[in-house]
């Protein structure tokens, strides 16, 4: 159980400014995912928290205890931070059995042998690999190695568990299994977890909160669904969601507490209460409307306030169908559940809920109208 507070963290590798004045609070019991494309600094932040990297600036506290204070050159040793780390490569010691890999840290802590046995077996059982305890890492499959690595991290019951892209070396099916496993583990052991990934599905499915990284800065910290519904700027919106969000360019103006938006597929008015606190430019200004592909409903017959569109191409994929559509020269993507078959050039009728649209100021790229 622990609450972690990072303040003004700066980290340089040579001239490379990897973490830029970063502030983040991780609440007790959170499953916090650091999400971002590769090279954005998320692993570096994890290593700063673990104590494997020393930031040049900033402070960190765990439960109010100062762990890092760069100004005082105070860096508490990794082993004294009561945390454990699962590496992307797993970093299992190849010359030790699964059992000994898990027991190593406990032996160092001089825990009595009987107790060690109990703790090791408990965590191996929790990861459902207790029958594999006498195998060496090279006798285990990738998924099993992964479980040993996690068992090793949780054996000493640390307050904080750090996971660095742990699923990236697994195949697609195992990854889905392990996602469920990790979510369950978080619930069972109740520790705070910091999880690094570039895979948004992992982030969205497992976390209680996501910290979205953009080039060493935090773009947005929010619960997964909020992040998905209302990405804070165009870059974040573009990053989150698969297939990608549609961006429809248009113009907007704000008057009488109403935001009036004009795009190819229609004109919409939004109430002030659905808007963010971002400053709104004077008069008419260019905007970008974000439309999630699954928010587009396709009808073959016209319904009330529907928009006629032409099928450009359909991509049926079994469980879902992606459809590329054009309306007045604007091309965008829709996603339907199930198998649908459309003719190319066929006219269809779209139903779009304006409340689900995001509106961004094109110039500042910031979100000005929330999807609700």
């Amino acid at each position, binding site marked *: 159980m622990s609450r972690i507070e990072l303040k003004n963290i*700066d980290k*340089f590798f*040579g*001239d490379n*400014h990897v973490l830029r004045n970063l502030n983040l609070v991780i609440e007790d019991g959170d499953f916090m995912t650091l999400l971002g494309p590769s090279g954005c600094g998320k692993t570096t932040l994890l290593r700063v928290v*673990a*104590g*494997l990297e020393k930031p*040049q*600036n900033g402070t960190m506290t765990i439960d109010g205890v100062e762990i890092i204070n*760069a*100004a*005082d*050159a*105070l*860096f508490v*040793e*990794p*082993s004294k931070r009561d*945390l*454990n*780390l699962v*590496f992307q*490569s797993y*970093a299992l*010691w*190849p*010359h030790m059995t699964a059992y000994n890999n898990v027991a*190593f*840290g406990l032996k*160092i*802590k001089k825990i009595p042998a009987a107790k060690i046995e109990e703790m090791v077996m408990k965590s191996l059982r929790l990861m459902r690999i207790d029958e594999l305890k006498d195998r060496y890492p090279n006798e285990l499959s990738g998924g099993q190695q992964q479980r040993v690595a996690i068992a*090793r991290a949780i054996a*000493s019951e640390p307050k904080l568990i750090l996971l660095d892209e742990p699923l990236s070396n697994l195949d697609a099916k195992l990854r889905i299994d392990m996602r469920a496993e990790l979510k369950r583990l978080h619930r069972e052991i109740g520790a705070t977890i910091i999880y690094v990934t570039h895979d948004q599905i992992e982030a969205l499915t497992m976390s209680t909160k996501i910290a979205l990284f953009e080039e060493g800065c935090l773009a947005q910290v929010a619960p997964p669904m909020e992040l998905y519904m209302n990405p804070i700027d165009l870059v974040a919106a573009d990053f989150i969601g698969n297939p990608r969000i549609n961006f429809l360019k248009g113009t907007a103006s704000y008057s009488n507490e109403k935001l009036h938006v004009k795009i190819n597929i229609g004109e919409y008015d939004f109430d002030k209460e659905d808007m963010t606190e971002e400053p709104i430019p004077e008069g008419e200004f260019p905007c970008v409307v974000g439309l999630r592909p699954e928010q587009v409903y396709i009808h073959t017959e016209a319904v009330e306030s529907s928009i006629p569109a032409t099928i450009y191409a359909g991509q049926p994929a079994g469980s879902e169908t992606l459809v590329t559509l054009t309306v007045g020269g604007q091309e965008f993507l829709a996603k339907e559940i199930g198998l649908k078959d459309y003719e190319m050039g066929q006219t269809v009728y779209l139903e779009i809920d304006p409340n689900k649209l995001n509106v961004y100021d094109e110039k500042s790229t910031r979100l000005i109208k929330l999807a609700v």
Partner: protein
Amino acid sequence: MANKIKHPLTGKRLKNLILGVVSNPFNMVVFISLILLISLIIVPLFTMLRETVTLAASELRRVDGEIGDFTLYYWKYVFASKLSSAVLWTPLRNSLLIGIFVTAISVPLGSILAWLVVRSDIPGKRLLSMLVIIPYMIPSWCKALSWLAMFRNSRSGHLGFFAGLGINIPDWLAYGPFAIISVMVLHYYAFAYIMVSGSLRSVNSELEEMGEIQGASKLQILKSITMPLVLPSILSAAIMTVSKSVGSYGVAANLGTRIGYFTLATKMKEFINVGPHAVGYVMSILLIVMATGTIFANRLFLGHRRSFETMGGKGTRHTPIPLGMSKYPLLIFIVVFLLVAMVMPLFVLLMETFQKSTGMGYSLDNLTLYNWIGRLEDATWQVDYPGIFRNPEFGRAVWNTLRLTVVASIITAFCGQLLGYISSRGRGKWYGSLTEQLVFIPYLMPGVAFSAIYFAMFAKPSLFGLIPSLYGTFTLIVLVSVVKHFPFASRAGTANMLQIGTELEEAADIAGASFWRRMIRIVIPLAKQGFISGFMLIFISIAKELDLIIIMMTPQTRTMSYLAFQYSRDAMPQMADAISVCVLVFILISYRIANHFGADIGKSWG
């Protein structure tokens, strides 16, 4: 530096900074290693430099001044005196001549062999690729003795194989530049072979097949695809060969000095022996400058092109290129080459150890086991030495060789792993690159010049008498062998340590393991395999060594290699040959063991 954040230096910060450095044993290990490296490499070098401008007692008669005065006498002696021609210019010309010819012949030879063995469909490739590198396992001074066994003429008092057949062997064939160049070619072609074949193996044959699809002929492919890709390694091989052959001592001494043919290395040794020492030091500096110069030229030329080697990547697929009609003639050429260059000389060398008189044929009445096990009192013909196994000198030499090889290679291998650990964990940090650079320095120096440095440093008490004179001691020979092999050992150690991911250590760090515990429980168990193979290669390299230790030899510390050299000069060819045979057997067995532990002779630098 806009990016660096400056924090005011408070008392608390200072305390934490100091604690951070002192409480980490790794920092102490780095600190001590750097101090040792500096005192074992930089300090001796500067001591020698200082000696060359300091007046010594023996020159007092000729130079005004007192002992210890600054003087340019020795430099003038070498560069601008009546003796310059004999001391410097002639030996320098000889050295360069040898270096250029050896390179010009051995590099193309090795490259062609490499191409044939790696890329063509020549029959018996597996066997050939093994046989071709055997000459590299044989110490070059052994090859010099083989050459003498074949070509000695009446000048030596003992006839060689051909002279014994009644063929008149002129001096220029038996001794001097032709002989030296031939013997060195037979050594260094294998070096070029190893470098070029390694590079050829990394070229994916798909690159060549792509050329073929585009319609290029075999010759065009070789010229415009294969050659440019392996050219960097051929050039490297050439430059390394120049550098190594110019400074080589053993062969030149064995085949040159008896007719008064001196190279820079052999002339230098004369001065170290008889004085003035400082003249020898000046020449040794010249040798170092020449060797260093060529290697830096290598870096300069190849600096940006070296990237080719990695670009070839892990190409593992190899479709052999058909040689067609020329397949068998080429095979015959290689077989004949190996017979003439390797099998026959070694056979003659071995047979000499069973002959009463060399060059007198292999009839039964000339054959004897006396040279191996005979007692002086049982000899039935004119002979003044007992068989080698009855010779106490030989026994002492075996003991010295074993003791030196074992002690020095264990120390070297350990230091190598430690230095490798520092370099690998300090990648991109100042202490990592400093360690790498310091460790590389002995590699730039020819063995005989390197030992001259140690001779200069330790011939008399140094550090105000804190270190006694080590000259003539076993310690000094061990020391010089250890430090000279640092470059190879630490390169092997770095490669070994890079295989152990830092994450394995970080995981232990988080688990609470201290630095020493991480070493003992994680790093050492995982480094074992690489340690053993590195150790074996160092072991063999030290067992072969002659150039490096020849200056340090005294009757008490003679090794087998030195004794063979000595006997050969004292006109006792059978004894010298018998020792060579022993050394050869010892080395081949060691290679066999090394191979068992996964050591690759291609990685050895000897």
